[in-house]
């Protein structure tokens, strides 16, 4: 079963995404902020990480950078989740090394296509 780590500080967004993905047969773990995400990534070794970029003190870009700098977690693909489809967000995602980018509100079909693309391959 594909293990997905969701890093998202908003409780409702986290809950929705978790339930929608669980329904499609994914195993979900949740982190509530950047440091929590970095810790769980190392501990749980998920197959893929969904990273909200607008986190609290440490933003999603910083957390992604740290995860990709750590030899234990650098192999895990990260998909950035942003609130608004800005070209600058898309560029930033590529710059910090995220494999892809998805805007909210999340279209479940698109997200699952992307997850399968990076986990399957």
């Amino acid at each position, binding site marked *: 079963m594909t293990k997905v780590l969701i890093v998202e500080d*908003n409780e*409702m*967004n986290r809950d*929705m*995404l978790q*339930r*929608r993905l669980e*329904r499609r047969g994914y195993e979900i773990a949740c982190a509530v902020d950047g440091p929590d995400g970095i810790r769980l990534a190392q501990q749980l070794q998920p197959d893929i990480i969904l990273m909200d970029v607008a986190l609290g003190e440490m933003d999603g870009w910083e957390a992604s950078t740290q995860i990709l700098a750590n030899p234990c977690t650098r192999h895990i693909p990260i998909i950035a989740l942003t*609130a*608004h*489809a800005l*070209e*600058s967000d898309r*560029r930033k995602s590529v710059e910090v090394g995220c494999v892809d980018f998805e805007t*909210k*509100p*999340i279209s*479940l079909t698109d997200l699952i296509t992307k997850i399968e693309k990076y986990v399957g391959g």
Partner: protein
Amino acid sequence: MRLGAQRISARLDAFLDYFIPTEIRVRPDSHRRARMFMLSHVFGPFLGNVIPLYLYIVGMELDYRFWAFACSITAFWVYPFLLKWTRAYTVLAFISVENLLFCILWACYAYGGIYSPFLPWLLITPTLAFFYLPSTGRVRDGLLALIAVNVLIFAGLVVFDFHFPPVDLDMFQVIGIISTISASIYVAMMSLYFARVLQEQQQFEREVGDLLATAENLRSLTTAAQQASVAKADFVASTSHELRTPLNAVIGYSQLLLDDALDEGDDAMVKDLENIRGAGTHLLKLVNDILDFSKIEAGKMEVFATRDDVAQRLAEIERSVGPELAERGYTLTSRLPEPGVLMETDWGAATKAVTHILLGAAASPTGGSLHLHVGTGRGGTCIIKIVDANGAADGRPIDKLFDIFHDDRDASPTKYGGAGIGLALGQKFVMLVGGDIAVAHGAFGERTFTITLPLDIPRGEQLALAS
């Protein structure tokens, strides 16, 4: 009459200025003094020469005393030319004061000594000197010393009873009156001119002050307006973010429930939940549009240009708006250029521009048909025409189409609300990438939006154009 006096006075000023060097004219105070100097040297000899003329008429002997006196008066006419050639204003002013002192004291020495009718002229010397030169510091001390030395020499001649050539003082009763009148006219003329110059200068300074105050006022208003615009953009940005989070929850949870209802086959519930999700999605789109609009207006929307194929990108836009147009009862046909026409632009912004105009054009509640015609134009441009076959019939005034929320009719083109800010936002995006948009009604009731985009985005101009 008044106008005539003004014209004469302007001519006089221009004549006086002819002799004054530029470096003196640029400063108001030195310019004022130089004009007084010029006035005195142009008109002074006319008044002064009245006296030698009288002496000549009454048959005074035309000896060295007479000629030295007449020449020292006439010599003042040389000073304007010396000023123009040498530009040494201060030195000339000192020499001129000395010339005047000599001329007056010589006349006194030659004609009557301390009883001379010309002695009152001595009083005008310091007055004139301080019309020409600043009454401060070393210049003032120098002038007073100069006057003192001359008067002392004269006094010395008197005290040591140096030989005065004898004259008939009875003959001088008339010239005494003429001399005093001449001196009075001379001082009056200088004072009047000085008063006028001062008044003009004060008025000028007042006007300059007013202009400076206006400029300062405008600057602060501009700054305030810019700050207000940025503050508004910040407010809209933060408000939009606050609105988006709960909206995402509305959309997400209705989707969750929708999934459940679909599983259970509860059709009534599915319809209700689809309405909730649809309204939420519409509202979110509106919030995003307002945020975009505000960001472009505040000059905060960044532009990232890439080169891409026009036909391919336009086909993508066509595909993405197709379902929503169909939902509104619109059909969309198109004629795109052959692949290979490349355009360098911010494709994100250009896509939004075309999408907003397409959806904004499709505003009739009964539907219609749209045609998208894309080609290239003069001067390296891409011309995108959006033709609504029956557009003019919807009654929206052509000059109000790009106004925000102008469309306030009850019959809504979409299920969840009015046309919103689509056309206005589309226009903003067109301008953001350096393009232009025009709208026209045709002979067969069609409405055509013509978007002209440069094939190469103008560097550094986008934000200025948009804001």
